[in-house]
């Protein structure tokens, strides 16, 4: 039944595609006529731009915010915006469909490598627009950061403000740390964690001493740089400070990490159902079911009830800048106005504040110190416009006051400084293009899906399964993938 639905969806996609293709053939003609005729008159009607956004919270008040934004937009830019929030869970399917049609002008590129969007021809080239844009906009991103969203030397999107760098920390339950007198300042390496977990496991055998970061993902990255490849086929180990692409399973970093987690798993410290877990480490710890989990962090304050200890100092992976960036759909009917709006979202503080924080007095209240708070009784999860807590999903939150739960009224200034202070992978800005060897790549993805997560959470023995995984990867053609990656990287580094 489900398959039938799947194919139905595909078919509907085709029909939509065909219809769109027909419409697209006609509209640019009629549009260009209208455009040239009405450009002279100053009283032309505002152009509507569809802005697609990612949501992880509730946005039932999006219409209200959209109306407020349009008041400003019509006056300053003669544009109307239509906000479309797409749920994190169905992001890929929905945005792929949106990109086929004309209901999407600006969208965040997320979840799929930027190079894939470009290879599929889904994005508009932005070089000419960028060259013509004003100085305030150009001063936002450094050349390195701008390079991060270029593919084959051409600019396709603009990165957004979030933590480009990640530090990796152990998050622990504050209550248990206090109860067992654990000295968290002594926890600096993986080895230091073992006695802590042992102590917790002994005192609280009913509790998981350690759980995955979220679902079945034990930790989202560590010391290896996937070079823009979410499946980790061929990585740079050592925080990307080498230039030799290696199979992740063969790196010392990975062997050390999985050796350790397997030891913990065997000792009963790690949740035995880790691979079928559906909860986040945060909620398990806050609800008292678990003691700790690894997390990749920015400079944001830890969740109340937890304390953290840094294990890996901040560093920036090569594809960090393109991991979430804003681009314009190739099917946009109004590319010029889309660019104007995109630029405004990075430079117009009133607009950015409305978009991210919602309407003052309704969705937030101002504090004296420059931060904002939710109205009394409201939290990120109960707010009817949850943008402030997902600042990292918007173009440029630095223009807005931070929500108090982030820990500091200067949060965004500190975030920019955090990004600047971090070690950056040698391959920063490099994007792997796998299109010429998709067959081997697809086969390798399937092998990685089989072993990577299981090894990471320690549920299988690396001594036995790494050789097995390597053998399967080899027959799937991993050598060709790594060789191509190395070749592309060498070329990139030479041209840099």
């Amino acid at each position: 039944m489900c398959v039938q639905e799947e194919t139905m969806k595909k078919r509907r996609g085709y029909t939509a595609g065909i219809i769109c293709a027909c419409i697209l053939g006609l509209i640019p003609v009629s549009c260009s006529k209208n455009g040239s005729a009405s450009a002279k008159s100053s009283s032309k009607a505002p152009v509507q731009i569809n802005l697609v956004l990612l949501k992880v919270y509730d946005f039932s008040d999006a219409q209200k915010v959209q109306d407020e934004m349009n008041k400003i937009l019509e006056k300053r830019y003669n544009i109307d915006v239509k906000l479309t929030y797409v749920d994190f869970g169905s992001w890929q399917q929905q945005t792929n469909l949106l990109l086929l049609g004309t209901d999407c002008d600006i969208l965040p590129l997320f979840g799929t490598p930027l190079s894939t969007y470009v290879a599929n021809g889904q994005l508009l080239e932005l070089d000419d627009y960028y060259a013509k844009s004003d100085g305030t906009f150009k001063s936002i991103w450094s050349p390195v950061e701008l390079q991060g969203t270029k593919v084959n030397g051409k600019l396709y999107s603009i990165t957004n403000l979030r933590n480009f760098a990640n530090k990796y920390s152990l998050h622990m339950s504050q209550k248990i740390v206090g109860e067992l007198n654990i000295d968290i300042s002594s926890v600096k390496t993986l080895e230091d964690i073992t006695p802590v977990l042992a102590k917790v496991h002994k005192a609280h055998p009913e509790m998981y001493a350690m759980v995955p970061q979220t679902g079945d993902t034990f930790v989202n990255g560590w010391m290896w740089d996937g070079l823009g490849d979410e499946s980790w086929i061929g990585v740079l180990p050592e925080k990307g400070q080498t230039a030799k692409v290696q199979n992740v399973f063969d790196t010392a970093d990975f062997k050390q990490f999985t050796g350790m987690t397997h030891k913990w798993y065997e000792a009963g410290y790690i949740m035995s159902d880790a691979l079928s877990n559906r909860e986040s480490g945060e909620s398990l710890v806050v609800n008292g079911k678990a003691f700790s989990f690894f997390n990749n962090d920015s400079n944001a304050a830890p969740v109340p009830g937890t304390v953290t200890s840094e294990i890996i100092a901040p560093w920036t992976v090569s594809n960090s800048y393109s991991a979430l960036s804003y681009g314009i759909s190739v099917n946009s009917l109004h590319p010029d106005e889309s660019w104007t709006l995109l630029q405004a979202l990075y430079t117009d503080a009133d607009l950015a504040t409305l978009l991210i924080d919602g309407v003052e007095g309704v969705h937030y209240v101002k504090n004296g110190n420059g931060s904002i708070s939710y109205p009394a009784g409201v939290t990120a999860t109960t707010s009817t416009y949850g943008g402030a807590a997902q600042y990292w999903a918007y173009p440029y939150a630095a223009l807005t006051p931070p929500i108090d739960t982030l820990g500091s009224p200067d949060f965004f200034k500190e975030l920019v400084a955090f990004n600047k202070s971090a070690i950056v992978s040698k391959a920063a800005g490099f994007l792997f293009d796998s299109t010429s060897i998709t067959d081997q790549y697809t086969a390798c993805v399937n092998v990685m899906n089989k072993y990577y997560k299981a090894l990471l959470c320690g549920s299988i023995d690396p001594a036995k399964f790494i050789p097995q995984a390597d053998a399967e990867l080899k027959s799937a053609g991993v050598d060709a993938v790594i060789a191509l990656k190395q070749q592309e990287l060498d070329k990139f580094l030479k041209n840099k």
Partner: protein
Amino acid sequence: MKTTLQLFSMMIPGLAYLLINNYIPMAGIVVAFKKFNYAKGIWNSPWCGFKNFRFLFTTRDAFVITRNTLCYNLVFIVLGTVLAVIVAVILNELTSLRLKKVYQTFILVPYLISMVVVSYIVYGFLSQDNGFLNNLLVHVFGAKKISWYTEPKRWPYILTAVSLWKNFGYTSIIYYATVIGIDTALYEAASIDGASKWKQIRYITLPELRPTIITLVLLQLGRVFYSDFGLFYQVPLNSGMLMDATNTIDTYVYRGLTQLNDIGRASAAGFYQAVLGFVLILTVNKLVRSIDKESALF
């Protein structure tokens, strides 16, 4: 002609639906032979011959996924049919009308539950720490816990059991509908001649059911290269370690291509499944026709 015209006009909505939903989209098959480019659209994307099909055959997974898809489906068809026919016959033997209704409802319920929900029910049984089966093993039998979601060897049985449990209700209702349509005079005559219940089933019910069984099996054979995505993806909770036992053509394509947004390859896989299913259904139908012309589909 006048009377048939009226009847034919009744077909129009159905035909229109079929045309719009099933025939026009078939033009999309061309995508399978193209290197699809979103900017150029379906018709202007460059052709690439059979390149999109290569990944289905050249990798080491090709054998595993084809084997899994085919063998699971064949097992599901055989066991599913046997189970459904047995249940249909038993339902017919019930004399209490109320009990009949109750049983019909009960066996249909699993069919109506979403696979995502089913996956959590299965998880309730198989969870390593709190699962029903592991608790049973430890507390009742004193055995060791089993790590269900990392060991693939038991999954062929688990998946078969789940699939049968979920689908037998629906098919047995179809068979039951045929069974109650059998002329009761046949049974009366048989019982007068002294035939036992078993003999009545063996010589009246089953032969009467044969055309329905053949039709349903033929229809299922047409989809033998498709797998129930929910069953193979959701129920094992997408656990990587189980892939040798749970990877089918559909899940392989889904896992490998969602990151790549590769419409061409996904269409190629769909086309491949459809063509093989079509060839299979033609062959089997021909076979059926050569044995028993009445029972063939066409």
